[in-house]
């Protein structure tokens, strides 16, 4: 087990390093700099600003200096927000993104679970095809299409819900949560359908039915528990995906989360912020993937036997 863990952790270091290196040099190639503005900055002022942020050093030295700071956990000062460092900007954005991710997951579990269970009860009938087709569409439809569509229908035509914001007007968290959660709802629908189908053919379900229990009790009390296990295993990686993938939704709905900071940092050429967010999110994904691998290994008895835990 330890050898597996160590090798996986060691494998992820070059991945993260590669991400840092590519990002570091890529952002410098982009036209425009962090200090360009409508009012052109005077050469003396620009030189002073560059000196303050080490931009006057040769690029490779800047890169080494950045890696040095990073090794100490320092993501550097933000260019756009003087007086703020990237660490605290990430700390400010993360709770919002996590909250959005949580609601999205909630939407995904409730809608996806319900659709999957309904579909599994009458396989190969309309009750199966309709939610599963919807799930397929949900998986295929990107959030940059679904978001504006929902805004158009519920925000503009019907005028029921706010079109953007976060915690400013009642109900403004609903559309972003649905937009972000829908793709995952679709996955969960498929997972729970498969899980339920398998469970519904088990002996204990037949026993429950034989005892004369109403069908809904059979489903809710007996089948659901086993049928949703694959869904539970999916939740961890799904949450990581929601955190890292929410930038489209955060941008559409103007939510002050990590994803939006990321996009804005790119627009502002806030070099340290772009790098910091990239490093943070890639680390997050690597860690969650590692965790899910460990979980999968732990749940699979054959793999577990190889680790010598038995």
């Amino acid at each position, binding site marked *: 087990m330890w050898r597996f863990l160590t090798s996986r952790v060691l494998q992820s270091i070059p991945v993260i390093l590669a991400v840092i290196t590519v990002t570091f040099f890529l952002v410098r190639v*982009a*036209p*425009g*700099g962090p*200090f*360009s*503005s*409508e*009012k*052109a*900055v*005077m*050469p*003396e*002022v*620009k030189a*002073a*600003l560059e*000196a*303050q942020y080490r931009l006057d050093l040769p690029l490779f030295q800047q890169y080494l200096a950045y890696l040095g700071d990073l090794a100490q956990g320092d993501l550097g*000062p*933000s260019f*756009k*927000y*003087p*007086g*703020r460092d990237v660490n605290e*900007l990430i700390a*400010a*954005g993360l709770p*919002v993104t996590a909250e959005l991710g949580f*609601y999205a997951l*909630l939407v995904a*579990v*409730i809608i996806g*679970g319900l659709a999957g269970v309904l579909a599994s009860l009458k396989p190969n009938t309309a009750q199966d095809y309709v939610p599963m087709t919807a799930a397929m569409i949900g998986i295929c439809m990107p959030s940059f299409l679904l978001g504006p569509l929902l805004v158009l229908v519920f925000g503009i035509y019907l005028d029921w819900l*706010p*079109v*953007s*914001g976060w*915690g*400013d*007007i*009642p*109900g403004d*968290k*609903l559309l972003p949560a649905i937009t972000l959660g829908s793709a995952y709802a679709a996955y969960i629908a498929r997972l729970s359908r498969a899980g339920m189908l398998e469970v519904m053919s088990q002996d204990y379900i037949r026993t429950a039915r034989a005892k004369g229990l109403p069908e809904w009790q059979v489903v809710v009390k007996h089948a*659901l*528990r*086993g049928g*949703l*296990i694959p*869904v*539970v295993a999916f939740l961890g990686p799904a949450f990581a995906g929601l955190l890292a993938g929410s930038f489209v939704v955060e941008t559409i709905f*103007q939510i*002050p989360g990590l994803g939006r900071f990321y996009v804005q940092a790119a*627009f*502002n*050429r806030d070099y340290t912020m772009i790098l910091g967010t990239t490093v943070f999110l890639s680390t997050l994904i690597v860690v969650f993937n590692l965790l899910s691998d460990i979980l999968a290994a732990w749940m699979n*008895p054959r793999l577990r036997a190889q680790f010598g835990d038995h």
Partner: protein
Amino acid sequence: MMQELISLHIRTERLISFSWLVSTMVVLAACSPSESNVSLGNRTGVLYYGIGSEVQTLDPHVVSDTIAWEISGALFEGLIRHDPETMQPEPGVAQSWDISDDGMTVVFHLNPQARWSNGDSVTAEDFVWSWRRSLHPAMGNVLIDSMYPIKNAEPYSKGLIEDPEALGVRALGPHTLQVELENPTPHLFSLLDSPIAAPVHRPTIEAHGAPMARYTKWTRVENMVSNGPFRLAQWKMYRFLRVERSETYWDANNVALNAIVFKPVDSDTVEEKMFRAGQLHVTYQLPVTKIPAYKAVVDSPYVEAPLLGSYYYLFNIDRPPVDDIRVREALSLAIDRDLLVEKVLLGTERPSASMVPAGIPGYAAQQHAVFNPDRARELLAEAGYPDGAGWPGLELFYNTSENHRRIAVAAQQMWKEHLNLDIELTNQEWKVYLDTVDSRKFRMARMSWIGSFPGPGTFLDRFVTGGASNRIGFSSERYDELIQQIAPKAKSRDLRFDFMSEAEKIFMQEVPVIPLYNRNGKHLVQPSVQGYYPNILEYRNFKQVSLDPDAGVWQWPSEDE
């Protein structure tokens, strides 16, 4: 294995019931009625104020955006304040001042009662230290050139003079400050009321790092010491920034508000909705499409007033075909500005063909071009492109934005209709666009400009030969002389403005820009807000703002009213 499965079953069940509980709570919380910000604010003297985007910094010497400028005015106080209604100077930290006969020296007598928020006295030495900091080359202050009227400010800020003693600011006593100028400066008091000239608390800044460093933590809530009518109370990034009345402020008895909550809301649509929901007293902006409806209602909360800002297209006059003045003039004459503003901007801006916007008291802006398609066609034919024949093509660059696109499309149609010219529209992301403009890889591009003091210089200064923001390649000896030598030394403001007007005329005769319109400030303001005056600089003096507790929350009139 079975045990694990059972425990997973139980966890699943708990998760599901927990999920239902949370979602019910979320729905309940979303539906429960609570008192609106405006109603609460009216009762408790708290102003809820929309500021567009998140404030970049609160260090007044680093501030470069209008939002931070406004907040800085609440937290810090310079020598002078202005009455927002009349724009006349009134005492700030200085309670009186003497101007020498030649207008080159001003002695300020500071109010001995002026205090920092930690109780320290605000002294003349504070200003001397602060200005040396603000102007220091290492500070990287992007608005530094506006301080150049101060003696030796320019060479000092460029590192050509290292001795800070040479700077034209001196403490003659603990409460007497002498300011020496390069030239008599009519807008000096405006300048002294800006964040760049605000005092900062030396011990606080030195306690948190190098005085010139941009990223020290002295501007944090727990660290900041300021001297304005308000002090920093809370700052949650991207959520809100709250300032509360400072008890140590010398004129605290005349500050009506107990607190101001600055609310960053990027989207104008959301801001407008928040206003209607009673969440904001004042909005930073509102969607142009909503303005006609607001204008039409009785007792409208919509406040529109001229702003010192211009919107224009600029040429790179070194590149063909726009190196030919006849082509530039033809393009300018073919634009129907009235129609553009009426149809595209729904009458919310002021059509104009001058570089310096109208509205500066005592200054006659030079309206160069008026809509004249016949003359435009003649000029184009003279330039060798009769009815667009042989036209080599031209592209108009603008930064990606729906508003810029709509204006560009309208202009494109007018050029096609009146001159039979095909103009290609190219939009670029903001920083890419700035790179294009700065490196002069354009022939025609969009730009706008907001003035920082009520004088024509704020619009004309940058077009001197080799100026950092002179992206058009304009160069005229007489213009440079007027702007840099003659106007600054003029004996009176009127004379100075005459020279400036002459310079603008020289500039406009070359048609290096196509001015389209002058900007307006556009806000929604609750009826309870008192002492809020629109002015060309969007200058806010929060000290004078108060809230009427009986005014109620503005509501959209029902259909039958």
